[in-house]
């Protein structure tokens, strides 16, 4: 589904990622684990098209999309939920969702589907997104990403900084989505237990390099904890 090869990327000519390669299987979940500053978010920004890599390729369904602008990747079937519960703060929650639904065939139906998946968002539709709690904003952010009916979802720390009761809700929804089929997920997550429960494939990123990778079953947890020394 998504194949990243020999990626070098960074900011102002100082590379953050050195020769990173990874694959997200079709209909599967891959997770990227690593400490703060390891380059996890940079990796997702490159995948989403917000940051141009200085070397390497990004392929989506076999097509080389390394130079494709971000908004065209959405049309190809990619959706990205950045770190930090990002939304358009001065737009209402509904307007945040309409932005993606506007001009899309079956946009309205997709919007309703996303709301069915996150019923809590339905309660807040008329409120300005900037006034919502972190948990509400994150659910809104994931709902917004789903309206484009993506085949690949890039999720950057979806449970970071959110109260535990909502974390469980968000984790359940992500696992449900992944289990439905037709959707691949590239998940960046600090929370090792959840990351490995969700993933078929994991990658540990340290200082911009993949230092350990494997399939995400029960046996992996020990190896990952050792790799991350936690």
């Amino acid at each position, binding site marked *: 589904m998504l194949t990243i090869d020999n990626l070098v990327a960074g900011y102002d000519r100082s590379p953050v990622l050195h020769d990173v390669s990874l694959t997200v299987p079709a209909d599967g979940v891959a997770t990227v684990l690593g400490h703060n500053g390891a380059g996890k978010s940079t990796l997702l920004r490159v995948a*989403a*098209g*917000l940051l141009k890599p200085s070397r390497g390729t990004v392929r989506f369904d076999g097509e080389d999309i390394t130079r494709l*602008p*971000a*908004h065209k*990747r*959405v*049309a190809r079937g990619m*959706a*990205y939920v*950045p770190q930090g519960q*990002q*939304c*358009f*703060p*001065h*737009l209402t929650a509904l*307007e945040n969702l*309409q*932005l*993606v639904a*506007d*001009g899309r065939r079956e946009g309205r139906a997709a919007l309703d589907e996303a709301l069915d998946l996150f019923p809590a968002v339905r309660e807040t539709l008329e409120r300005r997104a900037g006034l919502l709690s972190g948990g509400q904003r994150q659910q809104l952010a994931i709902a*917004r990403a789903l309206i*484009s009916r993506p085949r690949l979802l890039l999720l950057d720390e979806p449970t970071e900084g959110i109260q535990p009761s909502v974390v469980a809700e968000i984790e359940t929804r992500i696992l449900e989505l992944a289990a439905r089929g037709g959707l691949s997920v590239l998940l960046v997550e600090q929370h090792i237990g959840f990351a490995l429960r969700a993933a078929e494939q994991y990658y540990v990123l340290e200082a911009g390099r993949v230092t350990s990778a494997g399939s995400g079953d029960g046996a992996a947890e020990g190896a990952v904890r050792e790799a991350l020394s936690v």
Partner: protein
Amino acid sequence: MTLLFTQSFTGVSIGAVLLLIALGLSLTFGQMGVINMAHGEFIMAGAYTVYVVQKGISGAGTSLFVALPVAFLVAGAMGVLLEWLLIRRLYARPLDTLLVTWGVSLVLQQLARDIFGAPNVQTAAPSWLTGAVPLPGDLALPASRLFILILALAAIGALAATMRLTPLGRRIRAVVQNRDLAKVSGIPTATVDRLTFFIGSGLAGVAGVALTLVGPIGPAMGTNLIIDAFLVVVAGGIGRLRGAVITAFALGLLQAVFEYATTVSTAKVLVLAGVVLYLQWRPQGLFTLRTRSLA
């Protein structure tokens, strides 16, 4: 009583002109953070559009209503061209944008001199706009001023409705608030920038049409207006439409009061001094919103 009424109407109508010239700028400068010194020349282009249209259509009333949409398109097209040729390459560099657009403003003024001649030109106002509208109690309002007020309110209404209710308005606001998130939501941000610039510049053209009713049309008219326009947008709070509306009328009323008490020039100085003092106290303006490259 009559005096108070006429002076406050003068104030409101000055406010309406200020609002019209600042409205477009509240999009290009307020929303997008582009310091476009050539905005005044788009106003000039709108005014000359009336002059050109009147060469073809003799009826002053008809030509005014034909000129309104044509001026919007002409100024809008000039704006898009400027954005596409120069400004989009300079988005992260506000000072360079200022210098470049100032240069463009000089070029456009010279172009106007070459095409239309250096002296001011005259346009005919429709007969129904030359008189005064009588009101009960021996009061009367100049019809042209009333027309400008109505035009300003219609323009602000149309702009507010576009921003609030249409998909394009949502996109413009979204791009201002979080450009990267807009991109990954599938919004072609460069196209939205260009459309925003089109509407903002087009509104300058509409302002130019209105100004032909109250003043001369000349190559340098834009230069005289651009400062007022920036004044309104900055004092109103960059990025806030509501702030621009309130500030335009407040400055208009102040100007009228000072004009009555002193002279036109002294009134200008006093209003400018007032705005400077106000910004010392409230540097962010009346209302605040984060925009892209400024504030």
